[in-house]
């Protein structure tokens, strides 16, 4: 086995040193009844060449060479070359969680920069080192709001990503944390503040909204925040399309921001690994889940960084911790950091503006289902044919159309969620428009 770096004679020497006759003898204390009496039913090991061939064959069974207008929480943005250049460095790729600060300043410094950039982008005071993804970040944000307010009820807008809402329900189920939903305006595709007003009460810990929301619409965060704050609840703002923050006003009204950074140079990778964040105001920092990096000094007086405020975390607090999270998504956070650094202040704005222009071009050729303002995604309704027929016609042209919404929203029959980014070409958008006509 090529990953095992010992020769049989070295094994023999080591066994002699231990005083064991054979490798099997090292397991002699295992009761007979627990021992596997046959070989594992797995094929023999294969060479590097065969491994590459196996995965290339599988890859060939996936879509290849298609233009895609899918978004819905996972976006196609160009990945700057420098990102791969950085994360392929073994010093980042193969290092452990930076508990040993003296030999982990590389990772610690990049996380400190990451936390800073997330704060700048979201207009918050403090951001953590990462969560698994946006969906779990949202569930953890709700739990954080429950701790911070001492109340239990959570209200979530139906215009929040449907799978994120499913995750929230799973997490909330056993924590005495009732979750209820409030609707969206059928003409606008933005949250229904009156419905929120009807459903909120003084036992509500958090109101969760997404902007741009699942339909791509810039949602009424301010109105929701006003209602939430009036009843002593926190406002949690969720985002799935981080590029929108290049243009959109950061959520000044939000108490907690929970988001997904996949858009920042993280390959779609069939749904993961991604990287979530939680960012908040200073006063809630001790309720935050996840790792945090802080600035300090070493004994020589030089600036240094280390993991900090660990008394919130499971390895210290065990069942009283703010979360059970341990391993997070450090390497993905690094990808996002490099992306933000490459695009920078001007670039992120220009990138967002290009997304806006492309999506509005596509929308101008179709008839958006909702009339709310949108960023790079919108809902369109097919008329005179079925969605299935249209998507099949597009596939023939090597185009993957948008996401059919009926699975998530039965009332949105024949509706599709389309996304255009800086990578969408005009000719492909024209082809989509043609298929709709």
């Amino acid at each position, binding site marked *: 086995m090529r*990953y095992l770096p010992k020769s049989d004679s070295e094994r023999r020497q080591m066994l002699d040193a*231990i005083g064991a006759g054979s490798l099997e003898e090292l*397991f002699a*204390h295992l009761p007979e009844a*627990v021992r*596997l009496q046959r070989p*594992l039913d*797995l094929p023999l*090991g294969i060479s590097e060449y065969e491994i590459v061939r*196996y995965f290339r*064959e*599988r*890859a060939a069974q996936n*879509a290849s060479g298609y233009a895609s207008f*899918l978004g819905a929480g996972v976006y*196609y943005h160009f990945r700057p070359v420098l990102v791969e250049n950085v994360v*392929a460095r073994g*010093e*980042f*790729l*193969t290092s*452990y969680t930076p508990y*040993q*600060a003296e*030999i*982990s300043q*590389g*990772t610690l*410094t990049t996380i400190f920069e990451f936390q800073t*950039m997330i704060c*700048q*982008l979201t207009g918050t005071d*403090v951001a953590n080192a990462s969560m*698994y993804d946006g969906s779990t970040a949202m569930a953890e944000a709700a739990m954080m709001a429950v701790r911070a307010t001492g109340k239990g009820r959570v209200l979530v807008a139906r215009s929040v990503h449907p799978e994120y809402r*499913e995750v929230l*329900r799973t997490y909330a*189920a056993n*924590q005495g944390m009732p979750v209820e939903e409030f609707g969206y305006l059928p003409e606008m595709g933005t949250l229904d503040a009156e419905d929120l007003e009807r459903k909120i009460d003084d036992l509500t810990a958090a109101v969760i909204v997404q902007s741009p929301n699942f339909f791509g619409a810039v949602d009424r965060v301010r109105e929701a925040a006003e209602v939430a704050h009036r009843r002593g609840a926190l406002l949690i703002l969720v985002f799935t399309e981080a590029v929108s923050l290049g243009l959109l*006003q950061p959520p000044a009204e939000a108490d907690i921001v929970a988001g997904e950074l996949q858009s920042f140079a993280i390959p779609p990778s069939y*749904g*993961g*690994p991604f990287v979530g964040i939680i960012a908040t105001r200073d006063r809630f920092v001790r309720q935050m889940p996840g790792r945090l990096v802080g600035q300090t*000094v070493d004994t020589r007086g*030089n600036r240094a960084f280390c993991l*900090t405020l660990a008394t919130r975390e499971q390895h210290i607090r065990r*069942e*009283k911790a703010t979360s*059970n*999270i341990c*391993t997070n998504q*450090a*390497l993905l956070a*690094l990808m996002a950091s*490099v992306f*933000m650094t490459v695009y920078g202040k001007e670039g992120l704005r220009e990138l967002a*503006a290009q997304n806006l*222009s492309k999506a509005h*071009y596509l929308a101008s050729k179709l008839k958006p289902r909702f009339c709310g*303002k949108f960023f790079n995604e919108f809902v369109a309704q097919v008329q005179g044919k079925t969605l299935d027929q249209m998507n099949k016609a597009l596939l023939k042209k090597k185009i*993957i159309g948008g996401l059919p919404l009926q699975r998530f929203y039965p009332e949105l029959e024949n509706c599709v969620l389309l996304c255009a980014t800086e990578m969408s070409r005009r000719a492909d958008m024209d082809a989509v428009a043609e298929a709709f006509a």
Partner: protein
Amino acid sequence: MIDRVRPHLVINERLIFEHSSPGKVAYQLPVLDVPAVDPAEALGTESVRAEIEDFPEVSEVEVVRHYARLSTWNYSLNTGMYPLGSCTMKYNPRVNELVARIEELAWAHPYQPEALAQGSMEIMSRLETALAEITGMDAVTLEPAAGAHGELTAILLIRAALARRGNPRKKILIPDSAHGTNPASAAIGGYAVENIKSNDAGMLDVAALEQIVNEDVAALMVTNPNTLGVFEEHIIRVAEILHAKGAFLYMDGANMNALMGIARPGDFGVDALHLNLHKTFSTPHGGGGPGAGPVAVKKTLEPFLPVPRLKQSGKKWAYDYKRKHSIGRLRAFYGNFGVMVRALAYILAHGGPGLRKVTLDAVLNANYIRKHLEPFYELPYQSPSMHEVVFSDHRQAQKGVHTGEIAKRLIDYGFHPYTVSFPLIVHGALMIEPTETETKRELDRFIQAMTAIAEEVDRDPQLVKTAPHATGTSRVDEVAAARKPVLRWKPA
């Protein structure tokens, strides 16, 4: 002659914000092929932000140098051994990185039509099957994003199964040697936690367990081998005690590296376990993630697994979203697919016999270290070691030197520290797991370093207490960091 660290070229580097100056860029976008839209008009003036204050403005060359320089401040598996107990920091095969980056896998969208994702689904199915065989379980979900996420998933499965029988029960039993995520996950699953003490051999006390297990107990969370690296020899009896009272046996699979091809949790009574693909199955740790925490279960728990489930319809793979008893979703989409690709590549490379060899060598290495360090460090439990060995600083503490300081001194010899002060049942623990991918020479160097440090403690304890001495960054003041937290950069 003992190998030690020598200083190398380490350049001081500022934060990226301190390189910034207005107008510098590292990007170029294509010329827009559609009419430009005015943001204020499309979004409304009130929705358009002002510039992102203090966001980086740097050139491409600076980006490359910045991250390259920072990378040199990191220790990594590429440069040396990580004897981190319970972390299984093994070699990360490079071919795994290559296959995870194949365009049609890395750029597959989770919502692309199932007919155009058959390759991804086949990979997931094959990994599920392999993990079920390795663990002796009936079904596997790949959805959880990391070990702790897998623990939570398993607790929710157990809760759902018990609730369906009429009573979810109240508490989860956890040995005092367990990892901190175990009680934290149980709490999120809505259970009270009851700690149970280990016996003199560092194992579960079967008689005590028998006393405690009653109809309030939902499950026992056991790590096997446990965090002392000791195999729970009475595990079959433990399972019987729980099952007799209708409770479940959950196993934390963090230490699966000790069992592959030797013993299967499913065969010794475990009902559910999670695996860490970023430990046993070699996916890189990336400075703290991503990982993946698949959960394997017996048939009794299968109906409750998270949605969606893979199913075969004809010769095609499809997703089954309609599962009446499912606990729901643990995360959006299907899990950390990119990590699954790497783990499957690892399993394919080894095959069945290869995985067994992994375990044999992992246990050989741990016992080799134990044998050589036993004369110098106290071994609080004499039970046979599996893939890791836990010493205590009892002898060194008499000279005023503690495990954390010995660990820092190890850095000067070119090693990452072992796991410090864990498990909690060993006062001043030194928890050492070499993994199977270390050469004999690297193990000998490690033993020499540990032996040399033991001698230094006798001769010059202050030298050890003030370590590390050879690093660019000397001992970091963690207390100050927590007292006055500075969690982001701000302009001076």
